[in-house]
């Protein structure tokens, strides 16, 4: 009934014949001409994934990546016209993808890359002002109950693998051969100005930032971080977050 449904089915299945009713002025086989569309769709969507996941691609090589992305793309073509959003399901797909099992950290590296793209396009927000912090400090008894609003670009990734070191080694920082991928690492991803930054968070630090991002009160987030790691340096982590502009507001529970 739907011509476009048949057209789409043939775009995604290379075994399918060219849709009926296509013609060429010279009577040549329209399949060859239809292949231009098939190529454009398939290649451009795989290219979009390659743009979003460049380190994932480097880790497994172009040939493996493009073939893997092709399997994903056929199972899950974009559900949005905005290609910047495409690939949200790719890390979970990689995790279940048998041929990639020899690279167990691949899915988490892809998660880190996805968080970077999200951070890049996330909404703008001004960092919390020193005056607002000073006001909060003037009333220390109420401080533990305050909730921090994180910058819209902020993401935390807790991994069983050395995601930050693996990723950084592909940016020319550190020797990949010296990275032990099986050391757990947590990543903080946040846009500072126009640059997306990736930082390794030590144990405790990841707990603090993830708790703040989940909307827990300051006191509870700090206590959880200290419980995770007894020599956790709360001051240094708060200073880091403030310096990066990663916190945008302090909110009283009643204001929330």
């Amino acid at each position: 009934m739907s011509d476009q449904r048949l057209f789409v089915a043939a775009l995604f299945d290379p075994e399918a014949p060219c849709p009926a009713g296509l013609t060429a002025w010279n009577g040549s086989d329209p399949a060859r001409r239809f292949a231009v569309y098939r190529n454009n769709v398939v290649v451009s969507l795989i290219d979009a994934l390659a743009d979003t996941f460049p380190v994932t691609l480097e880790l497994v090589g172009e040939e493996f990546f493009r073939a893997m992305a092709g399997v994903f793309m056929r199972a899950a073509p974009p559900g949005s016209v905005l290609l910047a959003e495409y690939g949200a399901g790719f890390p979970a797909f990689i995790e279940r993808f048998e041929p990639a099992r020899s690279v167990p950290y691949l899915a988490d590296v892809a998660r880190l890359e996805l968080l970077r793209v999200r951070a890049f396009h996330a909404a703008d927000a001004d960092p919390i002002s020193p005056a607002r912090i000073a006001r909060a400090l003037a009333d220390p008894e109420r401080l533990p109950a305050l909730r921090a609003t994180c910058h819209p670009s902020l993401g935390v990734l807790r991994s069983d693998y050395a995601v930050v070191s693996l990723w950084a080694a592909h940016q020319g920082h550190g020797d990949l051969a010296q990275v032990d991928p099986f050391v757990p690492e947590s990543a903080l991803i946040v846009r500072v100005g126009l640059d997306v930054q990736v930082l390794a968070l030590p144990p405790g630090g990841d707990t603090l930032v993830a708790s703040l991002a989940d909307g827990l009160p300051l006191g509870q987030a700090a206590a959880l971080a200290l419980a995770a790691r007894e020599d956790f340096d709360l001051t240094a982590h708060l200073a880091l977050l403030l310096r990066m502009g990663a916190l945008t507001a302090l909110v009283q529970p009643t204001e929330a």
Partner: protein
Amino acid sequence: MSKSLTSTALSATALALALGTALTLSAAPASAADDKEKCYGVAMKGKNDCAAGPGTTCAGTSKTDHQGNAWKYVPKGSCEKTASPTSPTGFGQLAAFKEKKA
């Protein structure tokens, strides 16, 4: 600072002290160490456009490229350079797997 905060029962005073000190520290210019950790502008491009792909009529349509039942690729990228304590060779163990038929 951190020494005074080893208790998991965090007092309001300790939190205020940490936040106050953090405020002072964060006003200082970023140190060289921070610059090193900073990671690189994102060379992100706009992914939506209205051009045809640079490939030809053949690219992307080869039957072997994307059919799961004929999966023939193994990872051959920089993962081969990563250390793998679980591997007898000390490096990433690469092996082809047959894809399960969906």
